[in-house]
């Protein structure tokens, strides 16, 4: 619990880190209708694709420096030396990022979805889908960031981007299922299943990668 409080304090005080990705998401969603001319009266056609890509990009930006600061100032060394579980610490750190960035982005997703489609029933499932997908994306990019800890975050994001693509495909299929009302829940369960594996595996893998960097 104390680790959670500490991570929350650290992220809350770094306004640029948590507000930046939310603003980028907001800007992309605002820019979408402004850049579409022929489809002005049928904005919902491309909306969901843009939405998922915007979530992907904002989560990529959110994790840009997730470990860099702790690596540079020696905090990671201290964490490893202490008895507390390093893997749990990483998992909690990702959770805090999701709480402060992923949840607001998911709320905005619902608001923009409703604003664009004017369809509450279609927009409501966007909220859980965004919550789950943003958490999955965060974990994937955390893995990338750890891989390129002292080599710049772009490299890591590029390396792990292919892992995020299947999630985008599932999200696209899920939206089709939702629009045609065919077994949408199975896509939610599929994403939840993937998330449950990822939130356990990624912190373990990342902890080994970071230890290797410190060595």
């Amino acid at each position, binding site marked *: 619990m104390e680790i959670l409080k500490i991570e929350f*304090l650290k992220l809350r005080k770094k306004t640029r880190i948590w507000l930046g990705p939310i603003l980028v998401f907001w800007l992309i969603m605002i820019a979408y209708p402004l850049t579409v001319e022929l489809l002005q009266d049928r904005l919902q056609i491309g909306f969901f694709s843009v939405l998922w890509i915007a979530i992907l990009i904002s989560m990529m930006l959110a994790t840009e420096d997730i470990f860099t600061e702790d690596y540079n100032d020696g905090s990671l060394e*201290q964490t490893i030396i202490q*008895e507390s579980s390093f893997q749990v610490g990483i998992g909690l750190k990702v959770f805090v990022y999701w709480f402060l960035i992923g949840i607001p982005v998911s709320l905005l997703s619902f608001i923009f979805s409703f604003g664009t489609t004017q369809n509450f029933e279609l927009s409501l499932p966007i909220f859980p889908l965004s919550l789950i997908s943003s958490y999955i994306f965060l974990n994937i990019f955390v893995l990338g960031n750890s891989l390129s800890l002292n080599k710049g975050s772009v490299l890591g994001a590029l390396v792990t981007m292919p892992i995020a693509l299947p999630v985008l495909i599932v999200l696209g299929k899920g939206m089709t299922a939702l629009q045609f009302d065919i077994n949408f829940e199975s896509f939610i369960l599929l994403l939840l299943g993937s998330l449950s594996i990822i939130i356990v595996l990624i912190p373990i893998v990342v902890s080994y990668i970071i230890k290797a960097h*410190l*060595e």
Partner: protein
Amino acid sequence: MTDNSLIIANNISYKINENKLFHNLSFDIKGGRALHIKGKNGSGKSTLLRIILGITDPTKGSINSAASLQICYLGHKNALKNYLTMRDNIHLLQLNNHIKLNKYLDLIGLKKHLDVTVSSLSFGQQKKLALLRVFLNSSNLLILDEPFVGLDDDTHEQLTQFLSNELIEGKGLIFTSHIPCQIKSDLLELNN
């Protein structure tokens, strides 16, 4: 492990590429004893500390630790967050509820800077803040990498006194220092 031993190093060697930093080092740290590691720049002092801490693996040899070992480490990097205030950093170090916090804040003269961001503090003041981790430790082995760098004479003296008292209380101490100090210690000199 013998009764009072905290750490036993057995034939430790470390090399980077083909450059041997040290070869077949063996030593034993007991409670109440200090080990001063000396050597020129690049001789492997910090690397040896990292091996003892378990962060870096030795090329050869092993480190055995006591089951009850709890380490307090202060390295070159202070593990402080520059964008946070001193108060927040003390919270991050989980020392905010420590019974002796006020005493040591007074002692090192930082009490009036509690709401100042760390980036606004001088190098020496940042070092003093990092030293709170040492002053308020609850471990049985202190590992300090150049702890006297950046300290004024008074704080140097206070730290020396504090570490000497910790040794009397039965804690172990391993430290590197280029700055002469009055801590009674065994000497380990690294010179390739």
